[in-house]
């Protein structure tokens, strides 16, 4: 315990504080994911439109999301909003805005990929059988698209959870920041806290993301198009 620096966790309320930090991370991740999934679906459908204006807009949005590091977006929103618009938003809100913006773009691209991967003859055969437009989508296209969409979007969710570690850099007191504070405070008493605390946080992220990754690859294999 001593050598691993795990003793620090048991001192006072350290373990509780770390869990409190984790709760902040979970909140940011959960709200962003819950907002991104439906918005991403709408954006994905929007991206399949043939309208040239829609194409330019979605292309531009997607490129920003793909190219800009999430940390840069966090800085731009958190510091830029105050400077340019004079509004003071909290770091938590800025994080949720950025992750939702990013998640919606990525999710939209996954939805677009899933929709366009359905061969045309599926649409046409359904139409030839006399199905109406809503029936074609509800009973033919969406069930097939879901098989491709679910594994990839589970992967996206794990990426969003991992990326929440960045929000400490704009001053959100989440699990990483709390960990840092605990390590700093116990520097003299137990210098090995680095391993114990960071190890614990590493484990916390792993225990959340690993099962999701496993689920995604299981579903991918199970639903693979033969």
């Amino acid at each position: 315990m001593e050598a691993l620096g795990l003793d620090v966790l048991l001192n006072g309320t350290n373990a509780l504080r770390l869990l409190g930090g984790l709760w902040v991370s979970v909140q940011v991740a959960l709200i962003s994911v819950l907002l991104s999934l439906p918005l991403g679906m709408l954006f994905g459908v929007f991206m399949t439109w043939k309208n040239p204006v829609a194409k330019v807009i979605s292309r531009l949005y997607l490129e920003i999301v793909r190219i800009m590091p999430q940390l840069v977006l966090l800085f731009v929103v958190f510091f830029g909003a105050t400077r340019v618009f004079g509004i003071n938003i909290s770091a938590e809100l800025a994080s949720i805005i950025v992750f939702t913006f990013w998640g919606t773009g990525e999710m939209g691209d996954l939805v677009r990929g899933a929709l366009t991967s359905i061969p045309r003859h599926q649409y046409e055969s359904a139409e030839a059988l006399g199905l109406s437009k809503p029936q074609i989508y509800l009973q033919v296209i969406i069930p097939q698209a879901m098989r491709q969409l679910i594994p990839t979007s589970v992967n996206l969710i794990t990426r969003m959870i991992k990326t929440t570690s960045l929000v400490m850099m704009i001053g959100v007191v989440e699990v990483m920041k709390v960990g840092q504070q605990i390590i700093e405070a116990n520097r003299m008493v137990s210098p090995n806290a680095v391993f114990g605390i960071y190890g614990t946080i590493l484990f916390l992220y792993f225990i959340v993301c690993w099962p999701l990754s496993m689920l995604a690859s299981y579903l991918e294999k199970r639903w693979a198009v033969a």
Partner: protein
Amino acid sequence: MNVEAMVDYLPLFWEAMMLTLKIGWIGIAGSIVIGLVVALVDHFHVPVLRQVLRVYVEIFRNTPLLIQLFFIYFGLPRLGIPIGADVCGAVGLALHGGSYMAESFRSGLDAVSDVQRESALSLGLTRLQVMRYVVLPQAWALCFPSFVANIIFLLKETSVFSAISLMDLMFTAKDLIGLYYQTTECLVLLVIFYLIIILPVSIVGSVIERRLRYGSLGA
């Protein structure tokens, strides 16, 4: 916007970009090597080593780079191994990226159908020739899109280097904002410099991707 100030900052941002690029590309090169080794070990079912590397891939793929860097940067000195921020950045990026690259290469190798392998063997090609002329070219074409996506992802991940006080673009921007309060100017420069780094990779990647698509069979 204060253009004069932005011009003044240019050399600082340029230097920071060079550092980001240097450590970023060293890390990416390392991640490609690690990824190849892991994917080949997995592909040829090397006993024991395969399971060990599997654990490595799962751990590094399912935790954030930031915490990995903290672990290496603050942990290793406690074990008596002094490590500089730049080495730590490159090593951390290589290990983190290696796990992603391994997954991408592995899925490429797995996607080449057994029929291809068996046909080549029955034509009298040696195992090495099968690998060299049949499997690898197809696997390469198949995993290229995810390979480019990984490179872009890793270049983006370099932005967390500032947390271990490497003087990269993020660090410089943050530093200058703190010193002179030219927030908008610094943020604009930050965005521009990241575009300079990543946009060319994205464009070149999609051009090559389009050309490779002719090479893939049945697609």
